[in-house]
């Protein structure tokens, strides 16, 4: 088991190292940020001075080395726009993103868990058909369009929820729905097919033959076994959600790192973009590592075959 954990962790670190190289590559091809920031009348000497101050004239390997070294110290560069270290700008917005990610996760669980289980148990019923249709619909609606539909319905027409911003509980409902419903469709579908696989296993017959209540057979014997593949996918998605839902945050003016990143891209403030990309990738790798380990704990077969 311990070798398995170490192996996964090393793999995660290699991935993160490569990600940071890609991130550095973004800054290389993004051109000279100085020319975007200074007024046109700045003299060439001043320009050169600024370039030297930001270290933009050094050879590429040196810049890359400095970049990686900075990463190890937790220094993700300096935001040109905010005149602050990129990391602190991003950290300030992180709370809002985490809040939204967990709210969306709640939506996913509340929708997908009952929908997936019931549609598998009552397969081919009208409920099943509705769930399957809903899952195709949820997955086909682009999130920016679903967001607009919700705004039109709940804000413009019914005046129930505010269109944008963060603060009260009412503010989070629509962004969480927009984000959650997209993934919920897929999760429900996955849980359904995984439940269908499990429901035909022999231990289900055994459980029923023992005279267990159907509630326990489904809830404890089936759901627990069926949840493993779903857990993997949800892990992948939670990792992605922590990186900020770029589109959803933009539509609802949710002050998280996704919106911050979009603004930074448009303002060409690439240190911020780099910080967000790195943070997302790290969250993704860490969450997946945890899911992998959890998988090992929940399913003894995984532990045996992989160690």
């Amino acid at each position, binding site marked *: 088991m311990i070798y398995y954990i170490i192996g996964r962790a090393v793999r995660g670190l290699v991935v993160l190292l490569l990600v940071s190289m*890609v991130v550095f590559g973004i800054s290389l091809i993004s051109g000279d940020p100085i020319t975007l920031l200074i007024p046109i009348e700045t003299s060439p000497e001043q320009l050169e001075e600024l370039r030297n101050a930001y270290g933009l004239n050094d050879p590429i390997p040196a810049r890359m080395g400095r970049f990686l070294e900075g990463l190890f110290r937790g220094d993700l560069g300096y935001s040109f726009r905010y005149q602050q270290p990129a990391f602190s700008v991003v950290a300030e917005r992180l709370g809002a993103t985490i809040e939204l990610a967990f709210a969306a996760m709640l939506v996913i669980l509340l929708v997908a868990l009952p929908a997936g289980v019931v549609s598998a148990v009552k397969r081919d019923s009208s409920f099943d058909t509705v769930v399957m249709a809903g899952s195709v619909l949820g997955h*086909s609606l*682009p999130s920016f369009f679903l967001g607009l539909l919700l705004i039109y319905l709940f804000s413009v027409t019914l005046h129930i929820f505010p269109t944008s911003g963060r603060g009260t509980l009412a503010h989070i409902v629509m962004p969480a729905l927009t984000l959650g419903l997209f993934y919920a469709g897929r999760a429900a579908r996955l849980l359904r097919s995984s439940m269908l*696989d499990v429901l*035909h296993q022999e231990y289900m017959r055994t459980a029923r033959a023992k005279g267990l209540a159907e509630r326990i057979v489904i809830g404890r014997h089936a759901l627990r076994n069926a949840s493993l593949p779903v857990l993997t996918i949800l892990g992948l998605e939670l990792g992605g959600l922590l990186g900020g839902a*770029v589109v959803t945050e933009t539509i609802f003016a949710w002050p998280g790192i996704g919106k911050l*990143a979009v603004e930074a891209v448009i303002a060409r403030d690439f240190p911020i973009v780099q910080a967000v990309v790195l943070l997302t990738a790290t969250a993704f790798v860490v969450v997946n590592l945890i899911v992998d380990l959890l998988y090992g704990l929940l399913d003894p077969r995984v532990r045996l075959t992989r160690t």
Partner: protein
Amino acid sequence: MSEPYATAARQAHAKERITWFTPRRVLADRLAVVHSLRPKGVFAAMILIIVVLSAFFGNAIWQVDPSFQQLSARLVPPLSVGSDGVYHLFGTDHLGRDLLARTLAGARISLLVALLAMCVAAVVGVSVGLASGVFGSRVDHAVMTCVDVQLALPFTLLAISIATITGPSLMNVIVVLTATSWVAFARVVRSQVLSLREMEFISAARSLGCGPGRLLVRHLLPNCASIIIVISSFAAARMIVAEATISFLGVGVPSWIPSWGSMISEGRTYLPVAWWVAIIPGGAITVSVIAINLLGDWLRDRLDPRLTSPNGLTGLPRRNGRGRSDAERA
């Protein structure tokens, strides 16, 4: 699912249910029969054909210039005549441009970009996947690490960063979409090749003196074909959404070319006063994507031979053909 199996399954079903003979059950059985005919694929194909035809011939029938501005006829609601005396089926936007003409023009761009990007991504991803599956562990390791890196990178953010840096152009959009979606092909083809490699017909071909090139082209690739087709259809749906997303964020298709994403983005501001400007192109995206996804579902049910494997207890194929878990398919 092949027809004899379906019939056998239905007969077994009917026998099982004879003791439950109630009107509701009869209705349920009728519905099951209809279900097994799979109108899904036909329905999806019909919608898709309509979308494609209207994208490429729509402007010939509805001869209105999509970029013609008429400020006196701005925000005209659908199904009404503007102050310029022109009938607007879908209404007009904030600059008085005809929305139907723009939606049709947007369809052409969306489909073209999605199709091209999908083809390039398929070629790249399939080649990488084949190489990874065939050339043993070292290449495989490198490729899988690339795949992991690609998965860890936030797609939308990466796409808009590259698009901002390289500037708005159709070519760049296609490159960005390709760069962020070849992974799906590579992963699936790789796992398919890995399982095919152990099959007897491959060793048979090898022992007959089949070289690696011939093995790839004549034996492995054809056996991956159905899964590639299925992945392609889902990829096309994703591409349409992705293109619309980056255009919505303002860094995709250049602003002078009408595209669904930028139309929604423009219409967003007018949502309280003129819902149609944003909702109509959004509806167009949704309908196209649903049609492609349904077609993909249908293709998967039809083409993936592993889906017709018998289920554990009864030895009968599953009626709705979802034998393999989505985790394996993903």
